[in-house]
């Protein structure tokens, strides 16, 4: 046993662990700065968020140690079992969950609020890895795709039922994993085009877009051989795209409620409403922008300290970084994340087992999605979707989930040489 343990610690990827610790500690500092109040100026004060976060960090490190000492075969063997448990907890939360700011996604465990959706990401990741690493599974098969999308779709539906759109959206990150495992690259391109068209449909009058599409179709038509099959498919494509634009427009004006419409309008710059939906983003941009090059210094941020930025210790924690650490601190933080993501990809690619590789890609993709949407939101590039910044944001559930997710992968990697 002793020998094996030493082996593990020798084989784990210390760069990843190092970045993890840096981010967690930097997050803790920024939570301290964001909710700093002079009556409780000790960072260890357990009545304050920074004191609590310290506990979560200690627990997380404990969890990491436990995972590192676990036999990695367990994750493979219990992947579907864990998935099943997760689905069960997502069901349960619909009945016994407590509602926090509009989402019924929390289970009260006596003092600690557990958010099953955070852990569902791990379960789904394990399940997909297990499923796609099975023998005789090929991404090209329609059946494989359907079963995979089902594995992802089931928890997404359950989370959507909790009214937690943000957490549900995170699961779209797994498209990256599927792409790596053989899903056509067109999926990414078409996905990108759909998003662009979607935004255009909201910003520009639908008839202008449809007229523009018709023009492209005509030019295209003049270039192709005029056989019936091509004409029919071109016409079909045109109708499909025009129909999409039309239905987006229709959905926006007739299906979405005012609240959502506002948020979307603010995001695409159609509306400058600094009082309503745009207020948070505007204050967030002010806080970050006012940090200038080197920032105002630790605990010197006024925008976050005096509560001009909402949710400053959770979803808008990046404001504190931007304000107090400036451009330099922000860029370093971003760089640290990107290095972590690419490190994970590199580790994933060196895995001999498909299970570990797929799982690794899942980890990177989920982290990346959180990173992309969270920071994008604070600097006005993404819609206001309340999801935490990994390792930095305040919160036990999310920190535990991110830690477990990462360390399972580190544990798998540490074992890569033994597993053949």
């Amino acid at each position, binding site marked *: 046993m002793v020998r094996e343990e030493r082996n593990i610690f020798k084989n784990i990827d210390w760069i990843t662990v190092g970045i993890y610790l840096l981010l967690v500690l930097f997050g803790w500092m920024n939570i301290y700065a964001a909710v700093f109040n002079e009556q409780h100026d000790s960072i260890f004060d357990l009545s304050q968020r920074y004191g609590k976060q310290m506990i979560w960090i200690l627990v997380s490190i404990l969890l990491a140690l436990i995972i590192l000492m676990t036999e990695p075969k367990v994750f493979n063997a219990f992947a579907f079992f864990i998935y099943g448990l997760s689905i069960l907890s997502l069901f349960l939360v619909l009945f016994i969950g407590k509602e926090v700011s509009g989402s019924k996604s929390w289970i009260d465990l006596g003092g600690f609020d557990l958010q099953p959706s955070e852990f569902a990401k791990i379960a789904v990741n394990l399940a997909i890895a297990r499923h796609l690493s099975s023998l005789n599974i090929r991404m090209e098969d329609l059946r494989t795709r359907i079963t995979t999308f089902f594995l992802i779709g089931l928890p997404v539906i359950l989370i959507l039922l909790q009214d937690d759109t943000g957490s549900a959206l995170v699961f779209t990150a797994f498209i990256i994993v599927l*792409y790596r495992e053989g899903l056509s690259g067109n999926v990414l391109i078409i996905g990108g085009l759909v998003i662009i068209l979607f935004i255009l449909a909201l910003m520009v009058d639908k008839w202008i877009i449809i007229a523009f599409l018709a023009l492209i179709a005509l030019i295209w038509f003049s270039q192709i051989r005029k056989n019936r099959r091509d004409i029919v498919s071109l016409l079909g494509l045109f109708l499909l795209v025009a129909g999409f634009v039309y239905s987006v427009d229709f959905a926006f004006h007739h299906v979405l409620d005012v609240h959502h419409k506002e948020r979307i309008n603010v995001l695409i710059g159609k509306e400058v409403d600094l009082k309503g939906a745009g207020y948070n983003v505007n204050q967030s941009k002010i806080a970050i922008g006012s940090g200038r090059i080197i920032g105002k210094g630790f605990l010197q941020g006024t925008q976050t300290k005096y509560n001009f930025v909402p949710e400053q210790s959770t979803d808008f924690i990046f404001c504190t970084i931007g304000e107090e650490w400036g451009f330099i601190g922000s860029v370093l933080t971003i760089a640290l994340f*990107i290095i972590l993501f690419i490190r994970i*990809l590199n580790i994933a690619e060196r895995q001999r087992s498909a299970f570990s590789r797929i799982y690794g890609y899942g980890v990177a993709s989920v982290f990346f999605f959180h990173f992309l949407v969270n920071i994008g939101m604070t600097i006005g590039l993404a819609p206001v979707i309340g999801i935490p910044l990994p390792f930095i944001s305040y919160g036990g559930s999310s920190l535990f989930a991110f830690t477990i997710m990462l360390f399972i992968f580190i544990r798998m990697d540490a074992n890569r040489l033994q597993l053949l």
Partner: protein
Amino acid sequence: MQKALNKRKYVISMIFIIAGVIFVLRLFWLQIVDRSYYFSANNNVLRHITQYPARGLIYDRGGELLVYNEATYDLMVIPRQARNFDTLELCGLIGIDYETFRERMKKIREYSLYRPSVFEKQISKEAYGFLEEKLYKFPGFYVQPRTLRKYVRPIAAHTMGYVGEVSPRICEVNPYYKPGDYIGISGIEKSYEEALRGIKGSRIIMVDVFNRDQGSFQDGKYDTIAVMGKNLYASLDMKLQEYGELLMTNKRGSVVAIEPESGEILALVTSPGYDPNLLVGRVRSYNYNILAKDSLKPLFNRALQAQYPPGSTFKLVHALIGLEEGVLNLQTRYGCAMGYSSGPIHVGCHAHAGPLDLIQSIAQSCNAYYCNVFRTILDNRSLPNQAAGYAKWREMTCSLGFGSAFDSDIPNLVSGFIPKNEYFDNIYGKNRWRFLTIVSLSIGQGEILTTPLQLANLAATIANRGYYCTPHIIRAVGKQDDRQEKFQQKHSIPISRRHFETVVEGMYQVVEAGTAHYYKMDSIPICGKTGTAQNPHGKDHSIFIAFAPKDNPKIAISVIVENAGFGATWAAPIAFLMIEKYLMKEIKRKDVETRMIEGNLLSN
């Protein structure tokens, strides 16, 4: 297949890196290129709070407080931050309706979204008490302490002047003032504005999102302390001023009392007047309009701005000039046949014994005598012609303070009028006018105009036997004993002292045995001169100038009671009472006092 797929790592890595680069570029824009976020952040947390210094207080010559300050509060708003609050609750607290609220907010927003504007002026202490507790509910609103002027007694309104909101024009010219600031608009408040206002201070504090004070910005590094305005020590004697106003009840006119030796104004009474407290604060413009429409013109400062022909009081000027020019001496006698006649011209006189010498001519105020005196002045043989004689006379008259406004500390003084030669040249043609053309000047009528202040100064000059100090209202600024330098200067009159002594004797006889002997007091030797200003619009104005005691005089005075007829009937007894009040502190002749106070001449 697997080999091709592991290349996808690079595509995915690129996506990650591109996202990172986009974020960095965006941050570069937000944090380095676009400075507006930096200013917005300051706007969020920094509040520049103007510290208004207390305006200087004003004391009378005895050290008694005349004007002080009272605290009041302005409700300020920064429209950009005023959001998410219960509008109706706020309306209820300050007692306005929703429509008013909306209109005000609209105007304020048009002015500036970011700068503080006054939302409600001068909230009373009681209303402020309620508001203060609930202010946290209204982000963007805060309270600015201000002060209002208060007057201990309802006297000397014209002299004090008033304070009001600064006009946009002044704000443009003078950067010290910001819209909503107060400034002295008239009277002492205006002429001593710079001393009284002090120096505004500024404090920068930080506030949180609920607009709660979070302490000084950078430990007050950029704060400046407000410096209180300087106190003014007026030369006014509050009791004398008050008594003068009492005597002038229900009369139109003015009383000006000066300490001859120093030129310090002891009392400056204009009647009808008003309570200075009427022109303070929110009620100011309302009351101002009422006063402005009043047919008795209470806003008109008669003591300083009304111009009257000086009547017989001007005979003193003729006597002084005649003596100095040597065309007149103590023994000069002229007969009087109920006036002065020359060809078609006749200037009437009253019945008196004759012929009179100089002293008696002053005592009896003989018109014929002064027609002769004025004629001899114009005919002065040492001068080429009457025009030159007139020019010389005018020059000496002006040296006594007539024909121009004093360079004093009271704003809006008027100059009166002593016509120049050119004036008559224009009317009659050059060399086409002579003594008989302007004979009415001999008795202080005709074109000559003087102000009550100038007449009081004449009395002071004679009392001083040949000099005056510019009449002024503020003895010291800042420190009680620091007399203002510029008013110490003595203006000497180019007429020898013994001629003044002669005129003083004449004025003494006016009261002892002459035109004003009826109200003569035994206790104080008073020198005076009656006058009557002809009034083409109604009954003549009663004028009296005097000083007392005869030797080492302490008070010089001019009294004008409009439409009161002969100078001896109203103006003289009022002057006597003022002198008695000032020198003896109490009035012995209660019957005279009562008759004067109760006399109502407004209907004349």
